[in-house]
């Protein structure tokens, strides 16, 4: 795929080297060092750092070394949140291997996540310190906003599931996906790259809409894949249904089914995770197909991708053709074509 071309590999290698350099900088610490490096050493697509670096190059490229440090901070922060997410979700696999808490227990895993979270501020501060107070202010602003939005999104998803909230509309789902997925995964990396590349001369809200629609398309497609025969690396088919995860398709099917079906669906959603049987999960998956919820999800994902392309043209269209611009533009197709 185009997005996995030389640029992504180059950006990924530079970011990974910077991450490892920062993780190796501290004094040796038992029960911590190996855990901090565990997830970063497992690879990963390095998409977020690449978004940051490409935006930095496109919008001025005034501080390339600072952009790499910021990319390292993004990757470290992302891995820290993955550790905590895995604990919150009770996940057993991450990137094809046991999750950190499955290997070392929840307390040590949470501690490692905390340490990685704060360690990420090392490269971020190093990146922005030479760029002046205005840039520092902007970076802190967008980072604080990202942290708040991400936590709110995670709270929404967990709260809906744990409190069995049923009265949800599509706008609720979009709001959750904006906060939980798009802000940290697409918007924030692009904003950091834009701020650092332009030395704070450009408004970071320029890239907000593109990142939002890209993130929405990504999340819906991710949810669709979970319902498919190929749910993704290390994931279980229909796992989101068994988890009663509030997806766009679940919201849709609840509004499109008849009385008996809705009663059964609400009963199913009210069960605990271990009480939900395979037969009910398969019934719900079939119902989603019958009521057009899967097709609806596909159409909405495609519409969000279209909106993302529109926003891409509005923001990046006037820039001269370059490898970086092609990379950013190819992200829309990558949402659907990714492995």
């Amino acid at each position: 795929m185009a997005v996995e071309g030389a640029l992504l590999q180059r950006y990924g290698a530079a970011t990974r080297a910077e991450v490892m350099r920062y993780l190796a900088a501290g004094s040796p610490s038992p029960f911590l060092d190996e855990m901090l490096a565990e997830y970063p050493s497992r690879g990963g697509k390095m998409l977020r750092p690449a978004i940051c670096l490409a935006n930095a190059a496109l919008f001025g490229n005034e501080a390339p070394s600072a952009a790499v440090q910021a990319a390292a901070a993004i990757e470290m922060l992302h891995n820290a949140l993955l550790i905590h997410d895995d604990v919150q979700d009770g996940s057993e696999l991450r990137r094809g291997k046991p999750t950190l808490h499955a290997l070392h227990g929840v307390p040590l895993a949470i501690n490692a996540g905390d340490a990685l979270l704060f360690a990420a501020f090392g490269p971020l501060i190093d990146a922005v310190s030479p760029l002046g107070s205005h840039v520092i202010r902007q970076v802190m602003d967008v980072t604080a906003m990202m942290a708040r939005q991400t936590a709110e999104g995670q709270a929404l998803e967990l709260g809906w599931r744990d409190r069995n909230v049923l009265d949800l509309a599509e706008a609720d789902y979009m709001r959750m996906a904006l906060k939980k997925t798009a802000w940290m995964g697409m918007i924030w990396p692009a904003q950091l790259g834009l701020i650092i590349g332009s030395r704070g001369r450009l408004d970071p809200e320029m890239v907000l809409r593109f990142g939002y629609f890209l993130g929405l398309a990504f999340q819906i497609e991710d949810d669709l894949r979970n319902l498919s025969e190929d749910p993704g690396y290390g994931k279980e088919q229909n796992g989101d249904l068994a988890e009663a995860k509030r997806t766009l398709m679940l919201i849709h099917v609840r509004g499109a089914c008849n009385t008996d079906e809705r009663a059964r669906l609400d009963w199913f959603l009210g069960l605990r995770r271990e009480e939900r049987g395979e037969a009910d999960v398969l019934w719900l998956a079939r119902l989603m197909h019958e009521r057009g919820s899967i097709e609806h999800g596909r159409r909405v994902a495609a519409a969000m991708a279209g909106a993302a392309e529109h926003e891409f043209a509005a923001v990046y269209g006037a820039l001269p053709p370059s490898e970086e611009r092609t990379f950013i533009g190819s992200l829309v197709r990558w949402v659907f074509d990714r492995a």
Partner: protein
Amino acid sequence: MTTPEQHDPAKRWVSHQPERTGPQRGPGMKKPVPAEGVREPETLAVNEAIAETVRTAYDVLNDTVKQGRKAAEQFRGGTYNVRDVPDDVRAMAGNLLGLARQLSSATFDICEALLRQADTLMTPPPPGSTHVPPFQEPKAAPATQPGPQPFAASAAAPVIALEVLFNGKEAVRAHTSTLARPAAPTGAAHVSCDGLARRSGSAAPITDLVFDINPHGPGLRVMVTVPQDQPAGVYSGAVYCTTQKSPLGEIVIEVD
């Protein structure tokens, strides 16, 4: 796409009418909606339904951004504004520079005093000597207090000049021309005399005495107002200052 195609793609597209289109504003803990029958599905053209979804998506984004801005404004409206940091740092740096300047000044003063002390040593003490010459007494600092000048401090002059002037009756002579120098620097306003009493015989005392710096020479001057009907005789009174208990001397005049 990897989602299986298990349904009839020719089946018509139906979209339900949601009970809400806006996101939940509360904590997301509303009670479940009871199953109350199926709403009649409303058929929409595909492009209209999806266009509505995109519009909703834009609304969600705008709403979230608006809320974020509001939260940011509230944060910046707190007791401490992060934008004030540069000014505060500048003020702090200024204070530190001032403190450093004062410390440097004090250090130079000490060095200067040490050099003066060293100059007074004609010869260095012999090796092994335990006798160290005492520090030289510091010179008197110039007067800094406003108003009347204090008396000049000089160890060589234990008295200060006093010029006695008269007002009123003309046939009067002064027998006092000096006073003792106050132990501490003292302004003219702090010098006073309660009155001059007749040494022999009864008569009303002379009480109008005003001390001042002598503008025409060293020391003080005092203006004594003698009434025209003041009886003849020798009058005297003690002179005090507020900085010490002992009198500075006595003023003696003679009225003819």
